[in-house]
Each structure stands twice: as C-alpha cells, then as structure tokens.
C-alpha cells in the first residue's frame, strides 16, 4: 500500500539573499537539507523563515516586488537557472501552507487529484492514488466513505491533512511546510507530526514552526533564524536538533530555545 516510489532529493541553499523592493530581509543563508531528513526552521516572527521557505520552490517570485540572490540546488541543479521552469520546480517540491486551503469548489477526491489535473499530467489509476495519498496523510479512515463530499465540510485539522495528501499525490521529492499546525488543536497537531515522521522515509521535509517542542519532536536538524532591528535576517545557528536545543553554541540561540525572548 505504501509504495513510496519517489526518490528523495537533497536540497541546498547557497548564499540566498532576499529583497522586497529596496528592503533586504534575508542575508546569505547557507543551508543543506539532506535527503530523507526533516529540517525545522525556527525563529521569532518576522525573521524571514517563511520567506526563505518560499524561495525553495519559487513561490517567492510571485510577490511583485520580490528580489533574490544566490542559488538553490535540487540534487545539484539550480532551480533558478533560466533553463528551469518554475512549474516543474513546484511539481518536484511540494508545499503545505499555514492555513488549510483546500479548493472549496471541489470534492475531497477532486482535491487530491487537482494537482495532477492542474499540472496537466495524466491520471492513470485515480482511485488508488486517492487512497494511497489519503492513507499517507493518515486521514483515509475518516473520509473514505465521503470522498464525494465538499472539502470544506471537513474540520480544520482534517482540511490540513487533506492539503498534505493533495501535495503527496504529486509524489514530490521535497515537501515544504509553513507552520502547518499553527491553526490546529493538539490532537490534529499530533497526527500531522506522526505523518511527517512517516513521510521522511520517502522525501525530504523542511518545516517552519513556532513550536519548540514540535521542532524537537519531528526534526533531525534545526536552523535558527534571527533578524535584528532594521537588519536583514539570517541563520544564527544550524545543526542537529539535539545540539541546537541542548548545547547551542550561540547565546542568542540558547535564549530563544529556552523561551527568554521571541
């Protein structure tokens, strides 16, 4: 059933700097996301971690004033290379948003298949793909009898897992998650965390979170972002989650993970 055929890829950011208009919000971010690892991006609000996440699958460029320098490599290939198509990049690198955003005009089943339809790919075995995707997002049992229902009839937590399943149906190599649990209750949060653990067997995951415990529970490595007043944000510390939380090198990391600010 869980035929995870997708091959996870290594994603890396080299000297990524980001601007909105004249304002620089990120400076020289260097991070490597190894295949099959879960990386947590933590840091106070406004430090640019969500913005950074959006540069990883070229969603950043949809903001009119956006600017970027540096390279983002997917298995060694620059996704911003002129020969790369943004659409192809987004097919390989999926994304789950902060707020659940299922397509309201579609049923649960149609939502799962929407990615294939929208990217113009052929659907060979729709029923099996729907079941596999929903199972991988651990929501199959709750919705298997109502696949034709409107997606909005689900609860918030179910909607978010539906959105994860929708991304999984595309069989991405990398999955980006932007605070996927911030709008959810503890029960739904736990289930999504379990899902993340299972998914890391078949893909590379990058997750932005404000929840320290969550970062510790789900991630293998952690990057701590910080932006001082009126200066662009950047990575203060990057290493294994174990080290970042228990033996941080930078005193600011220590203050943040122990709840002294932010």
């Amino acid at each position, binding site marked *: 059933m869980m035929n995870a055929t997708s091959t996870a890829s290594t994603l890396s950011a080299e000297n990524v700097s980001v601007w909105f208009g004249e304002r620089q919000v990120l400076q020289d971010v260097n991070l490597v996301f190894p295949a099959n690892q879960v990386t947590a991006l933590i840091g106070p609000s406004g430090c640019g971690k969500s913005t950074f996440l959006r540069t990883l699958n070229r969603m950043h460029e949809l903001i009119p004033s956006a600017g970027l320098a540096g390279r983002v490599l997917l298995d060694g290939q620059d996704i911003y290379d002129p020969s790369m198509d943004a659409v192809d990049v987004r097919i390989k690198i999926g994304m789950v948003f902060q*707020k659940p955003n299922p397509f309201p005009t579609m049923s649960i089943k149609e939502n799962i298949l929407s990615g294939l339809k929208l*990217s113009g790919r052929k659907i060979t075995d729709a029923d099996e793909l729907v079941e596999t995707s929903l199972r991988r997002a651990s929501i199959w049992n709750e919705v298997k009898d109502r696949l034709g229902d409107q997606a909005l009839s689900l609860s918030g937590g179910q909607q978010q897992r539906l959105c994860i399943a929708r991304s999984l149906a595309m069989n991405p190599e990398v999955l980006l998650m932007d605070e996927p649990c911030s709008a959810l209750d503890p029960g739904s949060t736990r289930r999504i965390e379990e899902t993340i653990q299972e998914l890391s067997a078949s893909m590379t995951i990058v997750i932005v979170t404000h929840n320290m415990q969550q970062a510790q529970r789900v991630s293998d490595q952690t990057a701590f972002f910080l932006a001082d007043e009126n200066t662009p944000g950047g990575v203060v510390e990057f290493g294994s989650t174990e080290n970042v939380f228990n033996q941080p090198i930078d005193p600011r990391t220590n203050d943040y993970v122990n709840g002294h600010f932010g």
Partner: protein
Amino acid sequence: MSNLASRQPWALSSNTFKLQLALVSTIPSIIGVLFVILGNLDFSIGLVGVFLPIQVLTVAAFGWRKARRRGLSDALLIFFTIFFSTLVLVLLLSVLGSVIFEGFKAMSPHFLYENNRYVGTTTSLEYGGVGHAILGTLLIVLLTTVAAVPLGIAMAVYLTQSQSKMRGVVRTVTQSLAGLPSVVAGLFVLAIMQFTHIERSGFTGALALFPLMLPTVARVAEESLRLVPPDLRMAALALGAPNYKAFFQVVLPAAKSGIITALLLGLARVVGETAPLILTINMNNTTNLNPFNGPIASLPTYVYSFLGSNYSSSQQRAWGAALVLLIVVGILFGSARLLSRKKSLKTKPAKKAKK
C-alpha cells in the same frame, strides 16, 4: 413542562409588558384610521399628520419607561426601521400590483405569440399581441450579453490578476461608464449610424445597450473575483499549475456565484432600457428574427409606443407588455439562479465514492 418554559429566559415574561407593547403598536394606527374615516381627512395627511406623531410619541414613552435614554433610542430605531421598510415595501408592491392588475386584462394566449401587423390604436384586444416584441427583446439582449459578459469578465480578470499600472485608468473609466445615461449611449450609436450610413437594426440596438451592460458586469465580476482568497491561487500554483489553469480551474469556479450575479445585474441594467432602443431601432410591428436586417420590436419600445395613446385598448396593450417584460425578467433570473445551483450540487452527493 416547567423546564420548557425556562428555555427562552429572554422572552417577554410579564403580561403587562406584552399588553403595553400591543397597545403602543396598535393604538396610533387605530386613531389614524379613525381620523381618516370620520374626519374625512386625506390618507396622506392622516398618515403623516396623525399616525406618525402619535406613534413616535408612544414608542418614545414606551422606551423611556423601559430603560430611560437607552430604551428610548432603541425603541425609536426599531420603529423607524419598521416604518420605512414597510413604506418602501408598500410602494414596490403597489407598482408590481398595478402592473399585474392592469396587465392581466390584456392577457390571453394569442397576446403572447401574435404580432402587431394588423393592429391600429383602436383595434380590439382580441387581435394582435407582443410575440414579436418578446422575441425581439430576447434577441437583442442575447446579442448584448454574448458580447458584454465575456468582455466584462475579461476586464474583471485584468483588473484583479494583472499588476499593470494601467489598471487604475481602466477602473476609473469603467466606473464612470457605469454612470452613463442610457440616452447618451443611444445618441452615440445613432451618431455612428448616421456617419457610416448603417441602417437601423437589432444589431445597432444591441450596440447601444453594450456600453451599459459592460461596466456593470465588469464591476460586479471584479468584486467577486477580489473576494476569492489569494491562498487558493497560491495553493494551485504550488501544486505546479500554470497561471491560466490556476485561474480557470480554481479562482474562477470559486467566484462563480458572484459572476452569475454580475450577469444578472448586467441583464437587469439593459433588459428594460427604452431610450437607446427608440433612438437606434425605433419600432417594428412585425416579427423580425434577423438582427442585422431591419428594425426589431422589443418590449420596452412596445410599452412606450402604446402607452402614450388615448385609447384604452392601446393603453392596456402597454400594460400587458409591461407585465410580459416582468415575467421575462423573472424567468431569466430564475433560470440563471437554477443553473448555478444545479452545478454546485453535483459535487455534493457522496454516492460516487461508495462504489
């Protein structure tokens, strides 16, 4: 049973209070009616001079007794809300009522399908009808809709989806065009017709209605597209959708009911227009189904041409045509709403999943 009584603890509890409320709401109208009947007062004077002051005073006293100034303001707000809503409702219903009442006299099966070929101002109602005008109205409005709705939606798409600096200009022009008097649109097309020697036809009529329908459709469609959360488009793009698919398969369906409202308001704007059609088509008493050759009749121009007559049979024809116009509008609106509802129901039943 005592438990049942305590389910709505905010309901009016004391009987004296209920009695006061009943008196406050009925006594002024009774006094007003008595004045009108016994004092032989004019109805409007009775309403404004007798009923209104007494009602305001009693309502104010009632509110004051209940909660002083706060109660007074509350009571007056409620009273004026009800009073003016009723006033507007009565006015609207009397317009509708008189059209139905007068129009019904002219109604008969042949009135709906015959044309006016052999009808003069004094011809009895047993002959002739508005069949040609119904077809003409449908044809002209259809022609206008086919041109204005896709273009209006396209403008709305441009105004909401593009980042171009021209948007402000386009929006301002659209908004000022929305206030264009219909006579001006008619005159404009008439001037073009005289300049280019184009003959009067259904097409020139549709041309005159087009600038009236376009801005209405564009503005309402723009509002409804703006209400679609940007998240949805982002979600589609993040799934690898090209821009056009994200728009056509996600954003546009999400705005569907608003777009249909845009279509209906656009229809409402043009279906009863008279002046531009008189200028650009004038009248035709026979059935003409070719919008590019010769004048076409329409219901509003039919009403206009018969209402001015001194003969009662002609006036009744006009009333009848007005009623038919109302019915046509009702059918158009009803079917558009039905169409939009049917489609959204399709995704609801869970049957497909069970097999």
